[in-house]
Structures are given as structure tokens and as C-alpha cells.
């Protein structure tokens, strides 16, 4: 976009056209998938969408604002539990809370999915705000450990608050509200949000905070407020992601929301490129599919000539190695901090002279 005067008419440039066609194709694909995919593939498809939301929520914080937070699983847990408790019917709750009955004021609340998930997101955002305000004053490595600590604290609190969360038993039989449609829409909205945000002045301010906090502050940016805002919004999105996850798997328990989960999302973000929206989207899809595809590594394998016993843990070994190789040899991940553009794709096939990028 050239910085000319005032308003620009909506030009149907080649790039815009290609983007619209691609989105339309994707929507058609999604509809076809819904009708023809079997349950397993559909689940993978849904997981991809949910991980897009989660990866973007973490990338907002780590990649775009430069805040290394390791407590993401905690916010996901808050979102998942709040949403679950709001959507479960009293009968369902009674079935679950067989050890210790549920707290009376939660028992009879049952609301539809959309308001529930929004409230869940807000709850996570609120927790994020509470945690962020004190913790964001810390230096980056201390911030990492502090957020890790809070993630763990949240998990322990959930495990011990039996009358509210049903403790270690978790919640089973959640209504499967996370349909292909709803997760697809969620992924789409979150991606759109990120794109718009990062193109805006506020996104620029976040990137400035990431690149050089002191200089950003000297240029008039209220660095602390930007950090807290980023943290809060990221927590909101994490809460939404957690709620979607819960209502797709239909079971949640505290053991799901460990540092391991945060690590998985971090893996996706790093592989895709810290600071790249398209990188996170692509990486979320690829890693989710790969995680499922490589599940066979953990199972007994029947290679025509010999059988191997299952090698549990091999899958995570592969992914850990992948992460380390990526971070050591290609720190920028797949996309670095650049976004996918049609020019880039063209550049892969045709060696052209330098052109100005799609947007500043």
C-alpha cells in the first residue's frame, strides 16, 4: 500500500483477487470435508482449527510483543473449565460430581455455547490481567518462570477445588458444541483479528515493544500498557481455544493442562516462525496432522519383514529434535517474521527482480 493521500478506493489487485479465491476454495473444501471425511479425519481437521487459535494467541504474546510467557496452559484451563461449567446441564453435573457435590450456585446455570465461550474468554482475560499487571514488570527470563509458575498454580488450584471443578476427576460428557463450523469460524475470526491488528498502529506499537522497549517508550508508547493489553487479549484467545478444545474432546481434567500443552503450542509457534501469522497457521495445520500421522511411531509397527513393539515416546522424541534443530539452525522458523504473500510464492518458482512488498 503506497502512502498516498487520504482514502484509497478498494482496488481489485491481483493479490487481493488471489486471496479471495483462496479463501473461497478453503470454505468449499471445509464444506466438502464435513460431508465426506470420516470421524477421525474430521477430528484432525477440527484440531487444526483449534490449534490455529491457540498458536495465534501465543504468537501474539511471544512473537509480536516479545513477551516470553510459559503459562499458556493455565489460561486455556480457565477457559475450558468456565465454559464447561456454564454449558453442562444440572443432570450432567450431578453425574460428574459424585465424590463431592457441586457448589450450589453453579449447579443450575446452563447457557448456550456462544455466550458461554465468550464469558470463558473474558474469565481468562481477567485472570490474565490480574497476573499480568504484577508479572509484566519482570525481565524476560523471570517472566518466563513466573508465568510458568502461575500456570502450575492454576492447575493445582483446579485440582484442589473439588466442589467447583470436581478436582482430579475432571469433567466428562461435555456437550460437543465444537463442530467443524464453529471451530472453523473461530479460527477464521481470530486470524482476521490478528491480521487487522498487526497491520494497525497498535500492532506496530507491539512490534516496537518487541524490537526495542526503551526506544519504544522514548517514542511515546506506554510500553507497560501495551504489554498488559497484549497479555490480556492473548489470555482471552487462549481461554476461547481451551473452551473449544474441551468441547471437542468432551472431557477435561487438570492433567491435560500441563506445561506439556504449552510446549506443544510453543513448538507450533517456533516452527512456523515467531512473529508470523501465516507461519502459525501453516505450522498449526502441519504439526497437528504430523502429530496424528506419527502416532504410528508409538504403536507396534508391522513392517513386512519384522514387527516392532510399540515405542512410546518416540513421537515426542522426534518432535523435540525437530524443535531443537529448527531453533538452532533456522531460528526464524518456516516463515521467519514475514507473512505469506502471493509474490513470495511466485518468487519460489520464478526468479524476479526486486518488487515492493504487498504491504508495509
Amino acid at each position, binding site marked *: 500500500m503506497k502512502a498516498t493521500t487520504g482514502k484509497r478506493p478498494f482496488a481489485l489487485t491481483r493479490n487481493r483477487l488471489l486471496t479471495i479465491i483462496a479463501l473461497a476454495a478453503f470454505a468449499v473444501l471445509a464444506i466438502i470435508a464435513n460431508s465426506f471425511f470420516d470421524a477421525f479425519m474430521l477430528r484432525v481437521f477440527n484440531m487444526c482449527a483449534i490449534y490455529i487459535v491457540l498458536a495465534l494467541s501465543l504468537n501474539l504474546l511471544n512473537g509480536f510483543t516479545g513477551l516470553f510467557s510459559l503459562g499458556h496452559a493455565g489460561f486455556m484451563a480457565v477457559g475450558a473449565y468456565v465454559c464447561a461449567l456454564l454449558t453442562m446441564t444440572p443432570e450432567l453435573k450431578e453425574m460428574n460430581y459424585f465424590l463431592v457435590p457441586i457448589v450450589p450456585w453453579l449447579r443450575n446455570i446452563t447457557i448456550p455455547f456462544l455466550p458461554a465461550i465468550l464469558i470463558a474468554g473474558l474469565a481468562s482475560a481477567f485472570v490474565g490481567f490480574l497476573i499480568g499487571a504484577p508479572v509484566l514488570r519482570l525481565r524476560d527470563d523471570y517472566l518466563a518462570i513466573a508465568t510458568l509458575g502461575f500456570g502450575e498454580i492454576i492447575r493445582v488450584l483446579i485440582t484442589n477445588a473439588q466442589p467447583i471443578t470436581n478436582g482430579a476427576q475432571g469433567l466428562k460428557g461435555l456437550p460437543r458444541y465444537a463442530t467443524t463450523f464453529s471451530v472453523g469460524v473461530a479460527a477464521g475470526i481470530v486470524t482476521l483479528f490478528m491480521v*487487522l491488528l498487526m497491520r494497525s498502529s497498535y500492532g506496530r506499537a507491539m512490534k516496537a515493544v518487541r524490537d*526495542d522497549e526503551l526506544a519504544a517508550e522514548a517514542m*511515546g508508547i506506554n510500553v507497560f500498557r501495551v504489554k498488559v493489553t497484549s497479555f490480556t487479549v492473548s489470555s482471552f484467545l487462549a481461554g476461547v481455544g481451551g473452551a473449544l478444545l474441551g468441547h471437542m474432546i468432551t472431557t477435561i481434567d487438570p492433567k491435560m493442562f500441563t506445561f506439556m500443552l504449552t510446549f506443544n503450542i510453543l513448538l507450533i509457534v517456533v516452527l512456523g516462525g515467531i512473529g508470523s501469522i501465516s507461519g502459525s497457521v501453516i505450522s498449526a495445520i502441519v504439526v497437528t496432522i504430523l502429530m496424528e500421522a506419527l502416532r504410528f511411531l508409538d504403536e507396534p509397527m508391522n513392517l513386512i519383514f519384522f514387527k516392532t513393539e510399540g515405542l512410546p515416546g518416540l513421537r515426542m522424541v522426534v518432535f523435540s529434535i525437530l524443535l531443537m534443530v529448527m531453533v538452532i539452525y533456522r531460528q526464524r522458523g518456516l516463515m521467519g517474521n514475514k507473512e505469506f504473500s502471493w509474490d513470495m510464492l511466485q518468487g519460489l518458482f520464478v526468479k524476479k527482480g526486486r518488487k515492493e*512488498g504487498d504491504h508495509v
Partner: protein
Amino acid sequence: MSENTSDLMLSTAHLTMKFGGLTAVSDLNLEIRKNEIVGLIGPNGAGKTTAFNVITGMYYPTEGKVLFKGRNITGLKPHSITALGIARTFQNIRLFKEMSVLENVLVACHMSINTGIFGATLHLPGYRSRESEARRFSMELLEKVGLVHLAYEKGTSLPYGQQRRLEIVRALATKPKILLLDEPAAGMNPQESRELMDFIRKIRDEFDLTIFLIEHHMQVVMGVCEHMYVLDYGVTIAHGDPASIQKNPKVIEAYLGVD
């Protein structure tokens, strides 16, 4: 120099900065008037950058006050001080590494775009008009300093001299009343330094600025400063116009053995 105190842009009263046992700045009393170009010189480690950091709010002074146009700004956060009209550059160039030349300048316009996260993301009309105004303004600034043809290049890919210029322009985009430049001529040869000094004079006139600059090499600023303060180990050892500073025995002694 006029005695008219309503002209007073920036002043400090007994400004002292101590870090544990080390006194970086001691009893600094500055008086900088509108449209002046004032220098702060001294050997390395004299406390000049620390003084800047205190004035711009990065440190809270151990003693003393900072006054901007008569108003006590001691203890304000840096971004608030910038909003009031004090901008600065850094000794080690601190451009935003991952951004283009234009984006670097646009970041400095964020203040005037004055948007919250939702207004910006939703591209509300109010935001949109302020954003395009900021772009127009930034391009205009880049044009004035001869960097507009590099607007979409990555900021840190520019040659050193142009990076320095970019940092100055970025500070200008905050629409300051007074500009603090920390060793703007560092790493430049005499010819480049002279050009930079002409540039500084030019922007002072064009943008109606007051300029306060740190320089380690005396010769560079002799021609451009109206008066100078000389620091050595945090203490003000001299103050006056260039001619008298050059002849001041204490100043010569402080610089002895140093470049």
C-alpha cells in the same frame, strides 16, 4: 543570551544521580532556552548520557528536579515526557530492527494516532483518518531529510550515516519542542560531522526546535552550539560559549590524554 525566563525550555535544579556508591551526575544545573542549540560535552563516562536518561524519565534522580517550560517533570514516565514534547535519540542507534524506514517513523506517530487496540483493529473511521494523516506526515518528514526513496527498505540495512539521520527523523515524528541528541556524530568523519551539524541547524530552523546535544568530540560542536556545559566525572566543570570553553584550562585538562 536573553534573560527572559519565559523563554526557558528545559532546566534542571541540582540534579544528582547516584548508583549505589557511584555518583554519575552531580549537582547539574542546566538552562536551555527556546531555539537554542546547547551542548553537553565531556570525556567518556562523564555522565552525559546518564543526564539525558534522568531528564527523559528513564531514571529517577537521587536529588534535584527537572523542569520543562517551568513545569516539574521529575519522576514522569518516559512516554509521558515524550508526550509533553521532549524527544531523544540514543548513543547506540536504537532503530526497530524488524521494521522498514517508514514503519520506524510511524511508530513515533502512534502517540498522535491515539488509538486503543479495538479502534485500531476494527479500523474505525476515526482511526483510519488519523492513520493516513500519520503516513502523509511521515513521508513528508522523510522527504525533507532525503530518505523518502528508502521508505520501504529495512531500517537497519541503511548505511550508518543514514541510520543516524533516520533516528533523528523518528524522534522528530513525535512533534517535539526540544530534541535531545546523544552523540549524533559518533562514528562519522569530519566531513560527515560537518554535514550533520548543518542538518541539525536546518531542522532547528525548520521545525522551530530547541536542541540539546551530547558530544564527546569538542571540535564537532564548536561551530553549532550557542553555549555548552562541560562535565567531568559527573561534575560541571565549565559552562559558556564555545570560545571561552576552548580556552578554559580545566576543560583542557579534563580532555588531556583523551582524544
